[in-house]
């Protein structure tokens, strides 16, 4: 009966049944079970515009370099506040119509940064447009492709005022008399990127990351919470350098320089810390700066501010965690008297 080597029918049927059975166990049933997912209570549904942006994201193959999953291990903490859970993908991973399936957003390679939380990390529309038009205009060492076909170069006279103009630094600007404006597609893609924000879990529950460097932490000095243990330069590179650049010189026309800045070099760091905590939109020639109060701890802000005030020829004093804490309390009191 089981003479596989003589009976081709039995052989083929056994191979088929075996494979189908195993496939159901390991793929079809688990996948089917994963359909039964609800969105988080506060999770916003995708708007039509954002969904169009997602389509462009898929069309241009962004998924081949950008992941959208925060794994439950320590090193992924920089990409989100908590590990990703199935509900996070409730709206974004719907089937894209008759011809195309649900987008493969989780990705398998991180040639570029993870984008799970990019909307929180980098909310500025101007930054995104510059970055899409030519990534090297804001991140000098980037190897991301440019997407000029999402933009249009037109005569500056022809501009009616409804268009979104992209103010490029000189090295990347079009010839005089011309101007770069963002097509609708670019704006939709940016709308999608801005919508990528982790929703916090209800009842303030926290999902834990699996720590990696326990032995390293134990080997630290007892006063491990000291500002000194945080690497201000590293934090600056992670959080601030995409706009203000790693040399602190900013991007002319978009992001102001920190090197030689009056605010940064001021003896009293109060204004500087306030800007970091609350954001800044006082100067029309530059893009808006977001608030970092929710993203960075007092110690981290102190480390970053210290790094900024003592690098690139700046001569400011060091900032302590205590300074930041006081100003944060003061602001909170101001907002909720």
């Amino acid at each position, binding site marked *: 009966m089981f003479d596989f080597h003589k009976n081709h029918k039995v052989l083929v049927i056994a191979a088929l049944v075996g*494979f189908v059975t195993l496939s159901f166990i390991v793929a079809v049933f688990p996948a089917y079970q994963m359909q039964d997912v609800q969105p988080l209570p506060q999770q916003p549904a995708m708007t039509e515009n954002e969904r169009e942006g997602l389509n462009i994201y898929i069309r241009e193959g962004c998924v081949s370099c950008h992941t959208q999953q925060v794994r439950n291990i320590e090193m992924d903490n920089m990409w989100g506040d908590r590990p990703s859970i199935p509900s996070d993908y409730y709206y974004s991973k719907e089937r894209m119509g008759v011809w195309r399936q649900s987008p493969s957003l989780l990705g398998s390679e991180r040639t570029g940064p993870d984008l799970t939380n990019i909307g929180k990390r980098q909310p500025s529309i101007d930054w995104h447009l510059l970055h899409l038009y030519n990534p090297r205009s804001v991140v000098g060492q980037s*190897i991301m492709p440019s997407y000029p076909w999402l933009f249009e170069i037109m005569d500056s006279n022809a501009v009616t005022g409804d268009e979104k103009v992209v103010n490029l630094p000189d090295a990347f600007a079009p010839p005089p008399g011309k101007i770069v404006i963002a097509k609708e597609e670019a704006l939709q893609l940016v709308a999608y990127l801005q919508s990528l924000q982790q929703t916090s879990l209800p009842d303030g529950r926290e999902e834990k990351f699996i720590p990696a460097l326990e032995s390293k932490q134990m080997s630290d000095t007892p006063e491990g919470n000291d500002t000194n243990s945080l690497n201000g330069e590293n934090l600056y590179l992670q959080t601030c350098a995409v706009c203000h650049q790693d040399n602190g010189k900013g991007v002319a026309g978009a992001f102001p320089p920190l090197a030689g800045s009056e605010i940064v070099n001021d003896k009293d760091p109060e204004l500087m810390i306030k800007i970091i905590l609350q954001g800044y939109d006082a100067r029309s020639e530059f893009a808006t700066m977001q608030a970092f109060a929710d993203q960075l701890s007092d110690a981290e802000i102190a480390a970053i501010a210290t790094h900024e005030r003592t690098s690139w020829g700046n001569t400011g004093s060091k900032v302590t965690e205590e300074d930041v804490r006081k100003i944060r309390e003061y602001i909170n009191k101001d907002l909720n008297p």
Partner: protein
Amino acid sequence: MDYSRQIFILSLFFLPLTAVAQTTTVNSENWITSPGIIGTLVLVFIVIFIAVLIFMARLNSYVKLLKHRQIEKKNLAFNEELLALQEEDIDIILQQRKSGLKYRLKGTELGSDQGAVDEKGLIGRVTHEPENPLFDEKKKTPLGIETPDALKKIVTYYLGASVFWLVFGTLVGQYVGMKFLWPEMDHFSWLSFGRLRPVHTNAVFWGWASLAMIGLGYFVIARTSNAKIHSYGSAWWTWRLINLAVLLGTLSLMSGINNGGGEYREYTWPVMLLFAIGLVITFWNFYKTIASRKIADIYVSNWYMLAALIWTTVLAIIGYMPFFSDGLGETVIQGYYMHQGVGMWFMTFTLGLIYYYLPSSLNKPIYSYSLGVLAFWTQMLFYTMIGTHHFVFSPLPWWLQTTAIVFSAGMFIPVVAGTTNFLMTMRGSWSHISKSYVLPFFLVGVIFYFVGSTQGSVQAFRFTNYVWHFTDFNVAHSHMTMYGIITFILWACIYTILPKLTGKEPPQVLVGAHFWMAFIGLFAYMVSLMVGGTYKGLSWIEGNAFLNSVILMKPYWLWRAIGGSLMFTSHLVFAYNFYIMVNKRKSVEPMRVSQVGQVNN
């Protein structure tokens, strides 16, 4: 810095322990996943498994008994027929037997005292310099195998199309690889990185490897079944369908229409449907050919090839079905699909090809048929279960990840069985490697089969995955397997069979150039990305800014591009060799079918 790195590496080894400690909480909810329960279940499963085995053995022997009785009956009938024979008939039979026994050889059948003259033109080429130190004269292929012209044409056309897709696909790959160094190379949307990357992978998958495999498979199936191909016409239909699928797929990907970005699943379903129909037709054609075989046994090659065709059809159906692919269901299917695409299609089919072409090129039987059968069933059992190891630490269910990791380790069984089988087949023929231009390709392919597969299993473990996942190490692994195993074996098979079919051999220097450029290129490619990928992972773990990991990769990407250029150049040489082998003009006349048996080892 160095000190902390050492500590990190040490802690890496304990990571699995901490991971377990972190996630296992002792409460009644998780009882099913506790190690004790799982262990018990596994043990019970073993008992059930053995019970089923015993039951099946009993059933099998009962069915055999029934068959045996039938045969006895037939024998009885035959005996009675003998008894009923007439005297005259018996006399005739006895007379024939007597004359047979009296027959004696004359002594002149094989040779005589005449001087040596090459009357039949057996000697193809005369050299005055047999000891050339640089280009050792390789043995000529024993030319000519009696093959129907229709089959020759099919094999040649499948291989021809596959060579085209190889050159095209790797040209795209090379271009994409260079974009890591010069992101501003062009500004055409159709040539942007995100769109070209899937063009590269799909063209070499469905165009190059698939067409080459099916073409080579047609020859094996006819040869090992000692039968004619069931339908030549349907072979041509598959050829058209697959080429059309890759062509349409390439154009649609470049224009920005893709299925959602899941790797190797980028073609939309109408395009992949063409490919799947081609597979089903091929399966039916293979199946009918094997069914009409003139020998009792099904050669083990055919097991692998038939199974690969069925499994891949099932895979395409599951991969493209909409019912269970919203949300993370898509991710489960993606892990399953992309791993099985490699494991159940390319690896399984190629193994089938090795089981024929390796012994055939050594002119000896395979070492062990049973090891081949063991590897076959374990391939199905273990390979199918491991897809989710592409999503370790992801939001997919933890049990699914664990299953994938456990079965990844199980992959050692088919891999070791296969490797042992191939190496033992080669044993005793090592001297042939220096004399043959085919065997080095086989040897590299077989070694990579062991190294690449084992490395893949090891990479699935949680602590290695921790460092390497998401880095360029993955790209190194996929090239080590799809190129080091599949492509090298396919080349070996092509160089084995094509000269025999067409009667024309490629220049040996150029085969050597092809081999060495491809091998060195692959090595440079692989090692640079493995080293770079490891540094990248370590940089992430240390919490450095992300951009640092991009900057540190630049020299490694340069080496990758250099390796890639060598690989691509070798493909051009290969394409030229292919042209020489199939070119209609200047055929080597003297060597013909009847001499096959006379070429010594």
